[in-house]
């Protein structure tokens, strides 16, 4: 682009032959210098980005290769960068409670999937109904209600946790139940907000036309609004699933029976049990469990990259 500019400057010059030749030479020289400079800058940029990318990727690489090493190889004074032989049994081992110090990780995986699916479905229903009311229906106090909902987003979640713990465990007696893991987080003001914004983009004429035709609200919602708002709904689904998969603090507070425990709690406990055994800490098995928790999320990310990034850039915080 810069060379183009140079040529444009050069053409209208009507000076004498000699000086023109000099100028041309000069300009070509500076253009070449600029090009060289540009190439150097590009090389520098790629170098910087590559180094950063390697740092970002390294923990993933380390987790994968460590999960396939034998305990002896892992414990070598200087770790090897590639497993001498692949020990796949690290992966089967973590599903055997007799080898994990009594932890039933398989059960915890199933619990997490169950809680994730049920809470996502219920959450979607509640979110769609509220977003519909807040975007399409007219009622007194609508704006005040919406503002009040948004205001609750500013309060840190830790403030809710203490009372919710008392409500769920002491009053509702929900300790060690799936309800305790699902119900308190069914409604997210952020999801309602996200979906409401999407619903508002759908022209109101469609709704009025449907009303004239005598279509019921629910039918209209199902046939028109939900398909048109599909991208937001996909974002919400994925963020909600990720939330269930990664949740640690609340599940740890309200469950201590492995029948109801979620995978992240089990994973942390596995880490403690497998490394506290001082005579033979088993890091490869630990890393195998970490891989099994991490990889599903990475696969989901690769397929739904667009939706995740869109949701995240608006949400502000993790989880």
């Amino acid at each position: 682009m810069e060379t183009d500019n140079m040529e444009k400057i050069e053409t209208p010059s009507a000076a004498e032959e000699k000086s023109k030749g000099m100028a041309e030479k000069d300009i070509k020289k500076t253009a070449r210098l600029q090009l060289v400079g540009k190439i150097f800058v590009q090389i520098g940029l790629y170098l910087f980005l590559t180094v950063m990318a390697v740092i970002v990727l390294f923990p993933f690489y380390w987790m994968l290769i460590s999960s396939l090493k034998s305990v002896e190889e892992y414990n070598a004074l200087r770790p090897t960068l590639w497993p001498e032989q692949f020990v796949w049994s690290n992966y089967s081992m973590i599903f055997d409670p007799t080898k994990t110090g009594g932890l039933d990780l398989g059960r915890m995986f199933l619990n997490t999937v169950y809680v994730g699916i049920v809470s996502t479905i219920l959450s979607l229903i509640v979110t769609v109904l509220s977003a519909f009311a807040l975007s399409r229906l007219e009622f007194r106090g609508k704006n005040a209600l919406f503002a009040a909902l948004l205001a609750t987003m500013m309060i840190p979640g830790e403030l809710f946790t203490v009372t919710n713990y008392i409500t769920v465990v002491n009053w509702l007696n929900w300790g060690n139940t799936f309800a305790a893991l699902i119900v308190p987080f069914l409604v997210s003001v952020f999801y309602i907000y996200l979906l409401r914004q999407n619903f508002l983009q759908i022209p109101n004429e469609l709704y009025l036309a449907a009303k004239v035709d005598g279509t019921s609200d629910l039918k209209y919602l199902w046939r028109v609004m939900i398909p048109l708002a599909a991208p937001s709904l996909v974002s919400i689904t994925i963020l909600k699933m990720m939330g269930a998969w990664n949740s640690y603090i609340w599940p740890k507070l309200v469950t201590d029976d492995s029948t109801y425990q979620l995978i992240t709690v089990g994973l942390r406990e596995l880490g403690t049990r497998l490394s506290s055994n001082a005579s033979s800490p088993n890091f490869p098995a630990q890393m195998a469990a970490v891989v099994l928790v991490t990889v599903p999320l990475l696969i989901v990310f690769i397929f739904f990259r667009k939706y995740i990034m869109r949701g995240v850039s608006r949400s502000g915080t993790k989880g």
Partner: protein
Amino acid sequence: MEKTKQAKTPLTKMEKKIRAKAIFNRWKAWLYLLPALVILGLFTVWPIINTLRIAFLNDYNGLMEVGGATFSVGVKNFATVLKDPSFLTSLGNTMLLTVITVPVSTMLALLIAVALNSIKPLRRLLQTIFFLPYVTNSIAIGMVFMAMFNMVLLKGHEPISLGIINTIIEAFGGTRINWVNAGSSKVANMVVLIFYIVWNALPFKILVLLGGLQGVNKQYYDAARVDGASRWRIFWRITVPMLSPMIAYVVITGFIGGFKEYTSIVGIFGDRMGPVGADGSLNTMVGMIYDSLNDGSQGIASAAALILFVIIFIVTMINLYVSKKKVHY
């Protein structure tokens, strides 16, 4: 006259239906909102009120209240939190981690975003790579960082394995450091935590800043280039001011997140919140809340949560005040 007469005549079926529909229409919005409002009322609105209430009830315990116990009103819970020696440790750790990780991660994210914005080939691939840490479980990857820095100690003494980070350090001629094992220094622990927290914080910041960069009008850059401005000057005089709303956004959310730091420490050190033999040395404000909750001292936990809320509120206000002066909209 006419009116009363009409009202007395029995309504036809049609009229009844229309009237019922009108009533239904007036209330149906609330019907749609009902499930959300019930749950929000119980798990969001009530906690705001109740946390304030029990923070001022001395030695409050939920189970005892269910059993019919009553508690005296006072500020004992707050006094307990403020006098607890671990409060200062936790506050210090939290502030230190936040004050270091937010600027470091913001600066790095800005550099990466600008670099990504100036290249064409491989941009999408690199963008995806830089987002990967976001879609991970902080506990799980914390355990990986622990494994990378950890030395495997035989019977707790001589290391039989140095761990990959120490191997790399020795390969470059450095000396091995006890990063996370028993007897490790707090400085070493903090370096590991900062490294991990920055690694974790980059994706969101890069995403927001890159989004901002793509919205910057290219004409500013063209004009600067015609004027012969250097890259460095362009970066500070155009890129940073144009991006300042996004920078303010990631700094403010970064501070809020930093003050709530907890799971990354649990990921690396476990819930003893410190290396073996130094339990609680790396505790944070949020960690303190959960410790009290686990002890059954919910009044104290509420007081600690309110103190945290006030701190976050003040820091956010300072942030907003500073950014009002510096941000160019």
